[in-house]
């Protein structure tokens, strides 16, 4: 596995999709055009991953790619019954027009908000896991460092800013509210 660069064509999004599908993952592509005179298509590959198999999926992604997958971020979305975590990676980078996004989508049910940490597979993921833990309340099994990332140490527990249920912050800036009421 080369570190980066290297000659020749790299894996494209269709090939990556096929590899995921051959291994029993549900995968689909979305695309968007860019450019004015030179129209190009930019692709995003979405892969559905079961919560218990996130580690296998991460290992699979790492081994199938020509180069080390570039980790971007974990984003998250409140879907009512479950939290949907999106692990965004990019592949085939450092090549003109060849890069594409790979997003692993994982649903974590709200009655059991835990998932395995993959910080040992991709070391760059650690800040993001810490952030998801405090912002969405998802526990990561085996996370090497579980301190708060962006919230203060004394931030009330059980309040998760990225949720859209009763745990979302209700109490906003108190001083501002007082100021608004003319006190």
């Amino acid at each position: 596995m080369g570190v980066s660069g290297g000659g020749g064509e790299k894996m494209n999004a269709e090939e990556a999709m096929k590899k995921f599908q051959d291994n029993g993952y549900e995968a689909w592509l979305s695309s968007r055009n860019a450019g004015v005179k030179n129209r190009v298509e930019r692709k995003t590959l979405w892969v559905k991953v079961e919560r218990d198999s996130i580690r296998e999926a991460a290992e699979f992604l790492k081994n199938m790619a020509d180069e080390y997958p570039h980790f971007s971020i974990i984003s998250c979305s409140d879907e009512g019954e479950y939290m949907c975590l999106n692990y965004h990676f990019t592949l085939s980078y450092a090549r003109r027009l060849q890069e594409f996004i790979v997003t692993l989508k994982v649903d974590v049910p709200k009655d059991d908000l835990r998932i395995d940490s993959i910080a040992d597979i991709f070391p760059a993921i650690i800040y993001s896991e810490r952030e998801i833990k405090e912002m969405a309340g998802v526990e990561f099994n085996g996370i090497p460092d579980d301190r708060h990332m962006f919230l203060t140490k004394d931030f009330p527990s059980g309040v998760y800013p990225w949720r859209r249920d009763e745990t979302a912050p209700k109490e906003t800036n108190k001083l501002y509210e007082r100021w608004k009421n003319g006190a």
Partner: protein
Amino acid sequence: MIPKAFKRSLWVFHVNSGSCNGCDIEIVAALTPRYDVERFGIKLVGSPRHADVIAFTGPVTKDMEEKVKRVIAQAPEPKVIVVVGACGIGGGVFHESYHLSGPIDKLIPDAKFFYVPGCPPRPEAIIQAFAKAWEYLEEVEKK
């Protein structure tokens, strides 16, 4: 801009309490050759203990509340604070955030405040606020 000569230079300590950096770069822009406040003797210093005026930016995040109070407590009397930017004055675009304790004039009630509205304000406006603060300090000294 200022009618007569001042007795001494105005030293400024800059505190950022979680602003977006827009005001901070305009403060630096005011120091550098185009606006060049150093020609009036206005100078950024590295410690609040040396400062005549505190240039304050940002809406005061929860984490910074304690630190901001400590920094301002170190500044000598009379405490003069120039609040640069809309978010320092009333929270600005961040006003209802769950992670704010500001605005600063509610946290430090016994200081003299000068406000520079704008997001971010122009360097000229920032310089004018410092001139006003300077005049105030001279008046206090006369008494």
